[in-house]
């Protein structure tokens, strides 16, 4: 299945409020890597996002704490709306694609901040025992942080990642 084929299914199957451009480009989201035969570059395994690794250490420490630096254990509920990404006879997926006016959140009963990043780029892909390749990616990553009513019917405060 190619991205174009999938985009065709979406565009023909559901009432998508955004631009088809976004459907084509961004349904692929994070990790859509397309082999293009671009020049490979060496991968330094020890150099994987060192600044992220540092923040992860901080996050891990914070996760053990209470209050607004903790990771919630409450389960949120999905938004009721969404898209039939596999076509009109397919299931409803509780998510909207990046577009002006589309709902960013994937959880309902939510009141808080959201960051939405639909971004493309390139990077180095390495399969064990093979030469690295320089390949394109597309990512759709979001955060949701604030108050929400969980599946337990109670109010909670927490953060979520849409990856």
């Amino acid at each position, binding site marked *: 299945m190619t991205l174009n084929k999938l985009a065709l299914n979406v565009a023909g199957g559901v009432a998508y409020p955004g631009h088809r451009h976004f459907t084509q480009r961004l349904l692929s*989201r994070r990790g859509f890597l397309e082999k293009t035969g671009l020049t490979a570059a060496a991968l330094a395994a020890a150099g994987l*996002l060192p600044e992220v690794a540092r*923040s992860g250490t901080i996050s891990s420490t914070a996760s053990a704490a209470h209050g607004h630096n903790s990771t919630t254990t*409450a389960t949120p509920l999905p938004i009721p709306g969404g898209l039939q990404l596999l076509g009109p006879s397919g299931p409803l997926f509780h998510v909207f694609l990046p577009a002006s006016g589309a709902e960013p*959140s*994937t*959880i309902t009963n939510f009141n808080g901040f959201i*960051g939405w990043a639909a971004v493309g780029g390139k990077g180095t892909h390495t399969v064990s025992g093979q030469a690295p390749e320089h390949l394109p990616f597309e990512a759709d990553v979001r955060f949701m942080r604030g108050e929400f009513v969980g599946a337990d019917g109670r109010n909670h405060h927490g953060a*979520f990642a849409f990856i």
Partner: protein
Amino acid sequence: MQIHDFNPGITESGLFWTIPISESTISVNFAAGKASFQASDVDVEDYHDVVNALMDGPEVDAEVSWDIRWSHPMGRTKLRDLKNGFAGDFVQNVAQIAWAGQTDTATFVSDPAETSVNEFSLLAHERNGVFFS
């Protein structure tokens, strides 16, 4: 040809590719239209491609790390969507990402964040469900 699709899966309730994460991974200055989101070694699955992911097909264990920055606000709008039941304040801006993902047999490391290309990015303060009125 897509060769990786990293996501945490869909829960039985229908929660779509969404997992809890430490609040400390997120920093928001909504007034300035800026934010950051950083996380490391988050457990996900690699479904190979998005259709297989949507169909909950075979996957392998994977980890991803990311560092995303939002900046350069370009405009603010208020939105109230009665059909979908949400409202909020929205700031369209620019996001840049550096990220890495790995499975037992493959790694991917993006080029530096400043080389990434913004497609659609925003910050929002949203209310939905019981908070929508």
